[in-house]
């Protein structure tokens, strides 16, 4: 394998692992801010117990997001030196603003949020939680601005082959930015929502933490009932925006190879196996005209087919086509679970509806899978370009980089990530399995509910938090 392919695999690998954790912590940080706000407003100990529990989940996830994120901030230089040289003038300031407005904010208030409840007043502590949550959202803003500019570049001037910023407002608010931002933030929230709902369903089916679980499940259902339909709408709008600016990506999503007869419309391919060489789908199952209806909102609208561009300008169709269906399929499943939950709730039996609970449990990782599938659609789909229409991925890779060096680094990342994230996910699973532990009885305020245990190591979730109850 050559340097280019190895570098692409490596970037795909490290960013796919990384995005899982920020996506989860964007949702979790805001969930924590909500829990602490409810506790401050009502004084009910249950809210604080839930806060303390989910804060442990957050700490592990945030730690993994931080360490995998540092890798990301150097990837552009190590493996994509030409991209950095030519587009660094535009991307660098956007990423730096992310560090200045978001990373420092998160890191600065994280310590107090995790360890400082006894050292500051309750509202100051809530302020810290809120700042961490705000930081995660600001971070999303800048990183999505940078990646959206690479998809729909504007506001720059090309001097030779170097991108020089002309109008920063146009660069940040490029055409795909608002749609991608809405789609991503909703995806992050829904990912977290399904972990919370799935965990609660798991407790209800096991008969543990009934009060907490019922409360969290209801919150997840309410949130999902708003966010999942909103996400489907946002996804549709994002798709229409993509059709306008990256029509060939949409053609790959739809497996649409050739222009049909005039007025025949575009079919919706439900299933098929795209064949890049033969320029067709094998085993195709398609509904006539439905593609036109969804994409152009008309009976006979046309979209540009893949064969409208030369083969070397087409993305790899198979992954774009497949992952698009995975994403949409998972989205529809999530919608079904939310709808069934609303029905069961209306009938007054949400906590006992076995099939609904089983659905939540099964779909607890669905947000992560849909999120990855969605990113793979958009990133495979913009190939062969790294800056769309202007700089090809193959021209962006570091020159003078030996394939052996990249093979070494890729093997290193795979090995280290397997150990680190394997352990992290195992600890998260055990933590979620055990669930929230009620604070000491009689405790009234934040300071007292944080039981001070002698010799307790300074980690948010300790050994006792994940140990099985009977093993203690």
């Amino acid at each position, binding site marked *: 394998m050559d340097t280019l392919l190895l570098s692409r695999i490596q970037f795909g690998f490290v960013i796919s692992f990384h995005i899982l954790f920020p996506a989860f912590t964007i949702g979790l940080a805001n969930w924590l801010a909500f829990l602490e706000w409810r506790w401050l407003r009502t004084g009910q100990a249950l809210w604080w117990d839930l806060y303390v529990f989910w804060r442990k989940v957050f700490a592990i996830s945030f730690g993994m997001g931080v360490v995998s994120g540092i890798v990301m901030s150097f990837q552009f230089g190590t493996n994509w030196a030409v991209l950095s040289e030519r587009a660094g003038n535009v991307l660098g300031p956007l990423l730096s603003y992310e560090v200045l407005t978001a990373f420092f904010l998160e890191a600065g208030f994280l310590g107090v949020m995790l360890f400082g409840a006894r050292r500051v007043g309750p509202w100051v502590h809530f302020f810290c939680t809120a700042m961490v949550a705000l930081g995660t959202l600001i971070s999303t803003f800048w990183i999505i601005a940078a990646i959206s500019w690479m998809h729909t570049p504007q506001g720059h001037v090309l001097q030779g082959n170097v991108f020089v910023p002309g109008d920063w407002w146009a660069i940040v608010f490029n055409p795909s930015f608002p749609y991608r931002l809405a789609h991503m933030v909703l995806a992050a929230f829904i990912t977290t929502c399904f972990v919370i709902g799935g965990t609660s369903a798991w407790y209800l089916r096991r008969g543990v933490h009934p009060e907490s679980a019922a409360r969290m499940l209801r919150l997840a259902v309410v949130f999902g009932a708003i966010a999942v339909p909103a996400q489907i709408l946002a996804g549709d709008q994002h798709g229409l925006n993509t059709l306008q600016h990256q029509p060939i990506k949409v053609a790959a999503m739809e497996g649409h190879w050739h222009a049909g007869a005039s007025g025949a419309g575009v079919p919706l391919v439900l299933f098929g196996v795209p064949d890049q060489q033969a320029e067709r789908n094998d085993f195709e199952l398609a509904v006539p005209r439905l593609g036109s209806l969804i994409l152009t909102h008309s009976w006979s609208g046309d979209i540009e087919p893949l064969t409208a561009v030369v083969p070397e300008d087409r993305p790899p169709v198979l992954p774009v086509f497949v992952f698009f269906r995975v994403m949409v399929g998972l989205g529809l499943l999530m919608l079904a679970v939310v709808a069934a939950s609303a029905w069961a709730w209306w009938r007054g039996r949400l906590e006992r509806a076995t099939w609904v609970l089983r659905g939540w449990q099964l779909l607890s990782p669905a947000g992560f899978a849909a999120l990855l599938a969605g990113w793979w659609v958009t990133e495979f789909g913009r190939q062969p370009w790294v800056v769309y229409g202007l700089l090809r991925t193959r021209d962006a890779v570091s020159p003078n980089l030996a394939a052996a060096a990249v093979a070494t680094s890729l093997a290193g990342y795979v090995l280290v990530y397997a150990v680190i994230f394997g352990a992290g996910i195992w600890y998260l699973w055990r933590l979620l399995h055990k669930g929230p532990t009620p604070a000491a009885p009689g405790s009234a305020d934040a300071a007292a509910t944080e039981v001070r245990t002698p010799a307790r190591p300074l980690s948010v979730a*300790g050994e006792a938090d994940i140990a099985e109850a009977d093993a203690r």
Partner: protein
Amino acid sequence: MNDAGLILHASDGLAFWLPVVWLGVLGFGVLMYVLLDGFVLGLGILAPLAEDGAQFDHMMNTAAPIWDGNETWLVLGGAGLLAAFPRAYALVLSALYLPVLTLLLGLIFRGVAFEFRFKGQGFARRAWGAAFSGGSVLATFSQGVILGALVQGLPTQAGAYAGGTWGWASPFSLMTGVALVCGYALLGSGWLILKTEGRLHQRARRWVRPLVLGVLAFMAVVSIWLPLLSTPVMQRWFTGGRFVWLAPVPLLTLAVAARLWRDAAHRPDAARPHDAHPLVWTLALFALGFAGLLLGLWPHLVPPALTIWGAASPPASQGFLLWGLAVLLPVILGYTTWSYRVFRGKVTAEMGYH
């Protein structure tokens, strides 16, 4: 794109000054990283000297609430370099591919160990402790190698790196790698003296003097070795009569080292405790070393080919970010200081911050 070796003068106005200001900003960011993460990495380097698991935990606990913020300065360095000097970012990171890789892998192990060490018992606990120490040593050594390779100079042809996969490896860069491990260990000792009491505090005081000797020895070796390397770098230090003008830097370094040596001893009779002094003197030692480095590199960013003007992004990029920086950096320093204040005082072995 500018000529890589472009040299401008103050009469060139903004085109001269913006990259100079940015060199200062990035220099500040990197110095903050070296000072702040330096002592946390130093804890990892010193941790194998802990007498038992509890002392190991105690050492980690002193940094648990603040390590993440300290590491963020490195991310600022990376993103800021891409924004202000994209050409240097591209050249340095792709040329130093392997040491950058080991730096990142080391930081991963070090970072997750803060969360993971306390979730296991027995073997798992010891293993994550080893990950904390091993990761810290690896990350520090890699940083030292990167520094040494930069000082030595990265061979380029037509603006592209031409040194191959192992071009950074030399006796000099490996030596600077070991030197930085020694230096960060000294920072870590200073931090422990400030933040702990009792037995660990006493042990940390005993580590200071050998480490000071080590750091001074490495500084001497670097000073003797540099002129022999026959690179254009550091010429500033050793040509003509310049050394006289720059002499205050090494003299101050010696003076600071002497104060550090003195304050390393425990002085129960002193009117006020000196627990912060060893750390403060070590920070000053690092700041002086860093100043010496910048003076030597000037006006290069990546010697021998790339100057700060040759590597600079256009004013549209540097200016846009500088406005934000001017507003945000004081705010960042403000709440970071506040967060340190929340956790001020000694950390005892029995205490979590809860």
